[in-house]
Protein backbone atom coordinates (compact mmCIF):
# COMPACT_ATOMS: atom_id res chain seq x y z
CA UNK A 1 0.00 0.00 0.00
CA UNK A 2 2.79 2.37 0.93
CA UNK A 3 6.29 1.60 -0.21
CA UNK A 4 8.91 1.03 2.44
CA UNK A 5 11.01 3.81 0.96
CA UNK A 6 8.15 6.24 1.40
CA UNK A 7 7.64 5.07 4.97
CA UNK A 8 11.32 5.58 5.60
CA UNK A 9 11.09 9.06 4.16
CA UNK A 10 8.14 9.88 6.39
CA UNK A 11 9.83 8.60 9.51
CA UNK A 12 13.09 10.31 8.66
CA UNK A 13 11.31 13.57 8.02
CA UNK A 14 9.41 13.22 11.25
CA UNK A 15 12.59 12.70 13.20
CA UNK A 16 14.15 15.82 11.68
CA UNK A 17 11.10 17.92 12.42
CA UNK A 18 10.73 16.57 15.93
CA UNK A 19 14.36 17.33 16.64
CA UNK A 20 13.83 21.04 16.05
CA UNK A 21 10.16 21.23 16.76
CA UNK A 22 9.69 23.96 19.33
CA UNK A 23 9.98 27.14 17.34
CA UNK A 24 8.03 26.32 14.21
CA UNK A 25 4.53 27.67 13.69
CA UNK A 26 2.54 26.86 10.56
CA UNK A 27 -0.72 27.95 9.03
CA UNK A 28 -3.84 25.79 9.22
CA UNK A 29 -3.59 24.79 5.57
CA UNK A 30 -0.13 23.38 6.28
CA UNK A 31 -1.51 21.35 9.17
CA UNK A 32 -4.25 20.02 6.91
CA UNK A 33 -1.63 18.79 4.46
CA UNK A 34 -1.37 19.41 0.73
CA UNK A 35 -4.16 18.38 -1.60
CA UNK A 36 -3.20 15.38 -3.75
CA UNK A 37 -1.65 16.59 -6.98
CA UNK A 38 -1.09 14.87 -10.29
CA UNK A 39 -3.65 12.29 -9.32
CA UNK A 40 -6.05 10.64 -11.73
CA UNK A 41 -9.60 12.06 -11.97
CA UNK A 42 -11.84 10.94 -9.13
CA UNK A 43 -14.23 9.19 -11.52
CA UNK A 44 -11.36 7.01 -12.66
CA UNK A 45 -10.27 6.33 -9.08
CA UNK A 46 -13.80 5.36 -8.07
CA UNK A 47 -13.98 2.95 -11.00
CA UNK A 48 -11.41 0.87 -9.15
CA UNK A 49 -13.67 0.78 -6.10
CA UNK A 50 -16.60 -0.29 -8.28
CA UNK A 51 -14.56 -3.11 -9.78
CA UNK A 52 -13.47 -4.49 -6.43
CA UNK A 53 -16.98 -4.27 -5.02
CA UNK A 54 -18.35 -6.17 -8.01
CA UNK A 55 -15.73 -8.80 -7.29
CA UNK A 56 -16.85 -8.96 -3.64
CA UNK A 57 -20.53 -9.20 -4.64
CA UNK A 58 -19.75 -12.17 -6.86
CA UNK A 59 -17.77 -13.87 -4.09
CA UNK A 60 -20.51 -13.71 -1.45
CA UNK A 61 -22.67 -16.80 -0.99
CA UNK A 62 -24.82 -14.93 1.53
CA UNK A 63 -27.43 -13.02 -0.53
CA UNK A 64 -27.73 -10.29 2.11
CA UNK A 65 -24.00 -9.52 1.95
CA UNK A 66 -24.00 -9.62 -1.85
CA UNK A 67 -26.96 -7.23 -1.87
CA UNK A 68 -25.03 -4.72 0.25
CA UNK A 69 -22.11 -4.83 -2.17
CA UNK A 70 -24.41 -4.32 -5.14
CA UNK A 71 -25.99 -1.33 -3.40
CA UNK A 72 -22.52 0.15 -2.98
CA UNK A 73 -21.78 -0.49 -6.65
CA UNK A 74 -24.99 1.29 -7.66
CA UNK A 75 -24.16 4.27 -5.44
CA UNK A 76 -20.63 4.54 -6.80
CA UNK A 77 -21.80 4.16 -10.40
CA UNK A 78 -24.19 7.07 -9.87
CA UNK A 79 -21.38 9.24 -8.54
CA UNK A 80 -19.09 8.32 -11.41
CA UNK A 81 -21.83 9.12 -13.91
CA UNK A 82 -22.44 12.51 -12.32
CA UNK A 83 -18.72 13.31 -12.25
CA UNK A 84 -17.90 12.46 -15.83
CA UNK A 85 -20.51 10.41 -17.57
CA UNK A 86 -17.71 7.91 -18.06
CA UNK A 87 -18.12 4.18 -17.98
CA UNK A 88 -16.42 2.62 -14.96
CA UNK A 89 -13.90 -0.11 -15.50
CA UNK A 90 -14.93 -3.59 -14.51
CA UNK A 91 -13.06 -6.67 -13.43
CA UNK A 92 -10.11 -6.83 -11.03
CA UNK A 93 -9.65 -10.57 -11.21
CA UNK A 94 -11.82 -13.07 -9.44
CA UNK A 95 -11.80 -13.97 -5.77
CA UNK A 96 -13.80 -16.99 -4.72
CA UNK A 97 -13.22 -16.72 -0.99
CA UNK A 98 -15.62 -14.15 0.54
CA UNK A 99 -13.27 -13.27 3.42
CA UNK A 100 -10.37 -12.65 1.06
CA UNK A 101 -12.70 -10.64 -1.18
CA UNK A 102 -13.70 -8.40 1.73
CA UNK A 103 -10.10 -7.95 2.84
CA UNK A 104 -9.17 -6.99 -0.70
CA UNK A 105 -12.08 -4.58 -0.92
CA UNK A 106 -11.11 -2.90 2.35
CA UNK A 107 -7.50 -2.64 1.16
CA UNK A 108 -8.50 -1.05 -2.14
CA UNK A 109 -10.79 1.47 -0.45
CA UNK A 110 -8.11 2.37 2.11
CA UNK A 111 -5.65 2.88 -0.72
CA UNK A 112 -8.16 5.01 -2.59
CA UNK A 113 -9.06 7.25 0.35
CA UNK A 114 -6.02 9.56 0.40
CA UNK A 115 -6.22 10.02 -3.36
CA UNK A 116 -9.66 11.59 -3.33
CA UNK A 117 -9.71 15.39 -3.18
CA UNK A 118 -13.37 15.77 -2.25
CA UNK A 119 -13.89 15.37 1.54
CA UNK A 120 -17.44 14.12 1.01
CA UNK A 121 -16.22 11.39 -1.32
CA UNK A 122 -13.58 10.44 1.27
CA UNK A 123 -16.31 10.11 3.89
CA UNK A 124 -18.53 8.05 1.58
CA UNK A 125 -15.69 5.66 0.73
CA UNK A 126 -14.79 5.40 4.44
CA UNK A 127 -18.41 4.61 5.32
CA UNK A 128 -18.46 1.84 2.72
CA UNK A 129 -15.17 0.53 4.10
CA UNK A 130 -16.67 0.34 7.61
CA UNK A 131 -19.58 -1.68 6.21
CA UNK A 132 -17.06 -3.97 4.50
CA UNK A 133 -15.26 -4.41 7.82
CA UNK A 134 -18.57 -5.41 9.39
CA UNK A 135 -19.09 -7.92 6.60
CA UNK A 136 -15.60 -9.29 7.14
CA UNK A 137 -16.31 -9.74 10.85
CA UNK A 138 -19.65 -11.38 10.05
CA UNK A 139 -17.90 -13.86 7.77
CA UNK A 140 -15.31 -14.59 10.45
CA UNK A 141 -18.12 -15.18 12.95
CA UNK A 142 -19.81 -17.60 10.56
CA UNK A 143 -16.53 -19.46 10.16
CA UNK A 144 -16.08 -19.71 13.94
CA UNK A 145 -13.04 -17.45 14.01
CA UNK A 146 -12.21 -14.34 16.01
CA UNK A 147 -14.30 -11.66 14.31
CA UNK A 148 -12.31 -8.68 15.53
CA UNK A 149 -8.68 -9.44 16.40
CA UNK A 150 -7.03 -6.22 15.19
CA UNK A 151 -6.54 -2.81 16.77
CA UNK A 152 -5.85 -1.48 13.27
CA UNK A 153 -7.47 -3.25 10.34
CA UNK A 154 -5.38 -2.63 7.23
CA UNK A 155 -5.28 -5.61 4.87
CA UNK A 156 -2.78 -5.56 2.06
CA UNK A 157 -3.94 -5.04 -1.52
CA UNK A 158 -1.65 -7.65 -3.00
CA UNK A 159 -2.63 -11.27 -3.23
Amino acid sequence: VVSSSRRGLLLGGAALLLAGCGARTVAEEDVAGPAPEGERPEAELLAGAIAVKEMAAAAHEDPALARIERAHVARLRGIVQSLSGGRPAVGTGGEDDPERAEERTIAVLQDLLPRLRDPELRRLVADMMVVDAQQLAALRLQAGGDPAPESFLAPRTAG
Partner: protein
Amino acid sequence: LISLRRREALLLAAAAALVGPRGAGATQSSLPALLARTHQLELATAVAYDAAAGNGLPDEVAAAFARHERDQAVALRQALEALGAQTLGVPTTTSDVAALVPGFPAAGASGPERARYLIAVERATLDAHRAVLGATHHPEVLRTVASIMAAAGTHLAVLRDRIGASPAATL
Protein backbone atom coordinates in the same frame (compact mmCIF):
# COMPACT_ATOMS: atom_id res chain seq x y z
CA LEU B 1 -3.33 -9.45 8.12
CA ILE B 2 -0.61 -8.12 10.36
CA SER B 3 -0.50 -6.44 13.72
CA LEU B 4 -0.04 -2.76 13.06
CA ARG B 5 -0.03 -1.31 16.53
CA ARG B 6 3.54 -0.04 16.61
CA ARG B 7 3.86 0.65 12.90
CA GLU B 8 0.61 2.62 12.76
CA ALA B 9 1.55 4.60 15.84
CA LEU B 10 4.88 5.51 14.28
CA LEU B 11 3.40 6.40 10.92
CA LEU B 12 0.67 8.58 12.38
CA ALA B 13 3.15 10.40 14.60
CA ALA B 14 5.45 10.80 11.62
CA ALA B 15 2.68 12.19 9.48
CA ALA B 16 1.63 14.62 12.19
CA ALA B 17 5.20 15.79 12.57
CA LEU B 18 5.49 16.31 8.84
CA VAL B 19 2.47 18.58 8.67
CA GLY B 20 3.90 20.61 11.52
CA PRO B 21 3.03 21.76 15.02
CA ARG B 22 -0.24 23.41 15.82
CA GLY B 23 -0.74 26.90 14.43
CA ALA B 24 -1.71 29.73 16.73
CA GLY B 25 -5.07 30.15 14.97
CA ALA B 26 -6.25 26.56 15.31
CA THR B 27 -10.03 26.22 15.47
CA GLN B 28 -12.48 23.57 16.65
CA SER B 29 -12.54 22.22 13.10
CA SER B 30 -8.75 22.12 12.81
CA LEU B 31 -6.90 18.83 12.52
CA PRO B 32 -5.41 19.02 16.06
CA ALA B 33 -8.81 19.74 17.61
CA LEU B 34 -10.47 16.93 15.67
CA LEU B 35 -7.71 14.45 16.49
CA ALA B 36 -7.98 15.44 20.16
CA ARG B 37 -11.68 14.67 20.03
CA THR B 38 -11.06 11.23 18.50
CA HIS B 39 -8.40 10.52 21.14
CA GLN B 40 -10.82 11.40 23.92
CA LEU B 41 -13.61 9.28 22.43
CA GLU B 42 -11.33 6.26 21.90
CA LEU B 43 -10.45 6.35 25.59
CA ALA B 44 -14.12 6.77 26.51
CA THR B 45 -14.92 3.73 24.38
CA ALA B 46 -12.26 1.76 26.25
CA VAL B 47 -13.83 2.70 29.59
CA ALA B 48 -17.25 1.70 28.26
CA TYR B 49 -15.87 -1.72 27.28
CA ASP B 50 -14.23 -2.09 30.70
CA ALA B 51 -17.65 -1.50 32.26
CA ALA B 52 -19.27 -4.05 29.95
CA ALA B 53 -16.96 -6.91 30.97
CA GLY B 54 -19.16 -9.71 32.25
CA ASN B 55 -21.97 -7.20 32.13
CA GLY B 56 -23.20 -7.24 28.55
CA LEU B 57 -20.12 -8.71 26.92
CA PRO B 58 -17.97 -11.76 27.74
CA ASP B 59 -14.90 -10.74 29.73
CA GLU B 60 -12.44 -11.69 27.01
CA VAL B 61 -14.31 -9.79 24.29
CA ALA B 62 -14.63 -6.65 26.42
CA ALA B 63 -10.95 -6.83 27.38
CA ALA B 64 -9.82 -7.27 23.77
CA PHE B 65 -11.97 -4.42 22.50
CA ALA B 66 -10.85 -2.11 25.33
CA ARG B 67 -7.24 -2.92 24.43
CA HIS B 68 -7.89 -2.09 20.77
CA GLU B 69 -9.34 1.29 21.76
CA ARG B 70 -6.33 2.07 23.95
CA ASP B 71 -3.91 1.03 21.17
CA GLN B 72 -5.70 3.44 18.84
CA ALA B 73 -5.62 6.17 21.48
CA VAL B 74 -1.85 5.76 21.79
CA ALA B 75 -1.43 6.36 18.05
CA LEU B 76 -3.67 9.42 18.21
CA ARG B 77 -1.91 10.81 21.30
CA GLN B 78 1.47 10.47 19.62
CA ALA B 79 0.11 12.35 16.61
CA LEU B 80 -1.17 15.11 18.89
CA GLU B 81 2.19 15.32 20.64
CA ALA B 82 3.92 15.58 17.28
CA LEU B 83 1.59 18.45 16.40
CA GLY B 84 2.40 20.17 19.68
CA ALA B 85 -1.30 19.96 20.50
CA GLN B 86 -2.99 19.20 23.81
CA THR B 87 -5.17 16.21 24.53
CA LEU B 88 -8.65 16.84 25.91
CA GLY B 89 -9.69 15.61 29.35
CA VAL B 90 -9.06 11.89 29.71
CA PRO B 91 -12.23 9.94 30.56
CA THR B 92 -11.63 7.44 33.34
CA THR B 93 -15.09 6.78 34.79
CA THR B 94 -18.47 5.77 33.42
CA SER B 95 -19.72 9.25 34.37
CA ASP B 96 -17.03 10.71 32.09
CA VAL B 97 -18.22 8.43 29.31
CA ALA B 98 -21.86 9.38 29.87
CA ALA B 99 -20.91 13.06 29.65
CA LEU B 100 -19.50 12.43 26.17
CA VAL B 101 -22.12 9.97 24.91
CA PRO B 102 -25.45 10.29 26.73
CA GLY B 103 -27.50 7.25 27.63
CA PHE B 104 -25.12 5.18 29.72
CA PRO B 105 -27.14 2.12 30.82
CA ALA B 106 -28.55 1.99 34.32
CA ALA B 107 -27.31 -0.60 36.83
CA GLY B 108 -30.01 -3.14 36.01
CA ALA B 109 -29.78 -2.77 32.24
CA SER B 110 -29.93 -5.92 30.14
CA GLY B 111 -27.08 -7.25 28.01
CA PRO B 112 -28.68 -6.06 24.77
CA GLU B 113 -29.29 -2.60 26.28
CA ARG B 114 -25.61 -2.40 27.16
CA ALA B 115 -24.62 -3.56 23.68
CA ARG B 116 -26.85 -0.89 22.13
CA TYR B 117 -25.09 1.76 24.18
CA LEU B 118 -21.70 0.45 23.06
CA ILE B 119 -22.92 0.70 19.48
CA ALA B 120 -23.81 4.34 20.14
CA VAL B 121 -20.34 4.99 21.59
CA GLU B 122 -18.64 3.32 18.61
CA ARG B 123 -20.78 5.37 16.23
CA ALA B 124 -19.95 8.62 18.03
CA THR B 125 -16.28 7.76 17.71
CA LEU B 126 -16.69 6.92 14.03
CA ASP B 127 -18.36 10.29 13.48
CA ALA B 128 -15.34 11.99 15.05
CA HIS B 129 -13.03 10.10 12.70
CA ARG B 130 -15.21 11.08 9.73
CA ALA B 131 -14.66 14.70 10.69
CA VAL B 132 -10.89 14.13 10.55
CA LEU B 133 -11.29 12.77 7.00
CA GLY B 134 -12.56 16.18 5.94
CA ALA B 135 -9.80 18.13 7.68
CA THR B 136 -6.66 16.72 6.15
CA HIS B 137 -5.30 15.39 2.89
CA HIS B 138 -2.30 13.79 4.54
CA PRO B 139 -2.06 10.19 3.28
CA GLU B 140 -0.67 8.61 6.43
CA VAL B 141 -3.18 10.32 8.69
CA LEU B 142 -6.00 9.23 6.38
CA ARG B 143 -4.72 5.66 6.14
CA THR B 144 -4.32 5.33 9.89
CA VAL B 145 -7.74 6.81 10.59
CA ALA B 146 -9.17 4.43 7.99
CA SER B 147 -7.54 1.44 9.70
CA ILE B 148 -9.02 2.55 13.03
CA MET B 149 -12.46 3.00 11.45
CA ALA B 150 -12.26 -0.47 9.89
CA ALA B 151 -11.42 -2.00 13.27
CA ALA B 152 -14.43 -0.17 14.71
CA GLY B 153 -16.51 -1.79 11.98
CA THR B 154 -15.50 -5.24 13.22
CA HIS B 155 -16.49 -4.23 16.77
CA LEU B 156 -19.86 -3.02 15.49
CA ALA B 157 -20.47 -6.37 13.82
CA VAL B 158 -19.91 -8.21 17.10
CA LEU B 159 -22.15 -5.79 18.99
CA ARG B 160 -24.91 -6.02 16.39
CA ASP B 161 -24.74 -9.79 16.64
CA ARG B 162 -25.19 -9.46 20.43
CA ILE B 163 -28.48 -7.61 19.97
CA GLY B 164 -29.76 -10.09 17.41
CA ALA B 165 -29.27 -7.81 14.41
CA SER B 166 -27.46 -8.76 11.25
CA PRO B 167 -23.76 -8.24 11.95
CA ALA B 168 -23.33 -6.46 8.62
CA ALA B 169 -25.30 -3.24 8.44
CA THR B 170 -26.03 -1.43 5.23
CA LEU B 171 -24.51 1.96 4.51
